[in-house]
């Protein structure tokens, strides 16, 4: 599991950890019942405060993304992937609405946008 902390981004550290673990779970890279590093070992390995990793894990647990077994540790909770997929589809739709708005202000056609998307695709 790879987690990167950006100290200068201004985004709170617990938020960065929460989001990265959440993304790993949604993308399927972390699977149902996979163990997570303990709050303490994550903190010590990343040289950050245990208070912060605990906050991130508490939030993940509140959101139903992970569960805790006493004396065993934290694990990825079974996800309702349909619901998560729905959430992501909705986000993509929202972004598309934004793109349409901006394209209109630049007088770009649908075809222009598709060309831009293809170029991006090739660059990856």
């Amino acid at each position: 599991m790879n987690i990167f902390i950006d100290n200068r981004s201004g985004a709170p550290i617990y938020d960065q950890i929460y989001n990265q673990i959440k993304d790993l779970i949604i993308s399927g890279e972390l699977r149902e019942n996979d163990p997570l590093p303990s709050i303490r070992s994550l903190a010590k390995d990343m040289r950050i405060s245990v208070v912060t990793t605990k906050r991130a894990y508490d939030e993940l647990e509140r959101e139903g993304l992970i569960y805790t077994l006493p004396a065993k540790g934290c694990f990825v909770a079974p996800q309702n992937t349909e619901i998560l997929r729905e959430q992501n589809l909705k986000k993509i739709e929202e972004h598309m609405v934004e793109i349409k708005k901006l394209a209109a202000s630049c007088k770009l056609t649908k075809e222009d946008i598709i060309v831009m998307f293809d170029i991006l695709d090739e660059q990856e």
Partner: protein
Amino acid sequence: MNRSDLMNALEIKDLTKEYKGFKLDNLSLTLPTGCIMGLIGENGAGKSTTINSILGLKKYDHGTIKVLGQDMNAELKQDIGVVLDEVGIPQALNIKNVRSVMKNIYSNWDDKAFGDYVKKFSLPDNKKFSDFSKGMKMKLAIAIALSHNAKLLILDEPTSGLDPLVRDEIIDILNDFTRDEGHSILISSHIVSDLEKLCDYIAFLHKGKLMLCEEKDVLLERYRFINATEEQLSELDPDAIKGKKTGKFSTEAIVDQELIPANFRTAPITIEDLFVFMAKEEN
């Protein structure tokens, strides 16, 4: 008593000590078990007075102190690793002597761990303590503090006089010490950047008073730099401004992000910045 069940490694309530010209004024601090707290303050702020009071080295006028849930007593000292400015090792002893002395003082002396630290810190086996450099003395004190299975480390300026490489190594060692959730550290230092790396909680002491005690990450998230004109600053909630520096072309201020309008451009602070700005504001 199962010590790792203890909620707090240290509980200080209303600690007060008065000397001529100085007063440690109703200091209250709590160090939860498994955490690291950094004590920052100018010389004479009261850090050493606080630490000496905790260790029972100095009597205090008022207040209560609980260490690992108890009042300080001789047996408790077995569980506390201490590094103070005055490293109390007789000058004529060398490492070999120190080893035999410590074996007798500490019932949980871990000779192998001590040997590993001596090697790690490249401490000379046969030199007399009086011939040690300041840096070597500090390293020896730290090695001893870490070699008797202590549950709580109390360190007063443990890295002063040490070069950046050694300091980094020691910070790593202290970080590792708290991988065990029953281990806690109270550390005072002028090298605020070391504390910023290591600590869970930060306490600011200034002229005998506690200016703040807060989670380090909360401090770094909540307080930010802004650059503005005096006029713009005067329009802000006065409680938002923690301190400022007026320059020729603009004023730099540290503000509470939650109390200013959202569109202000802010930059991150360091803990050292925060202390300096707040202390100057107090003066």
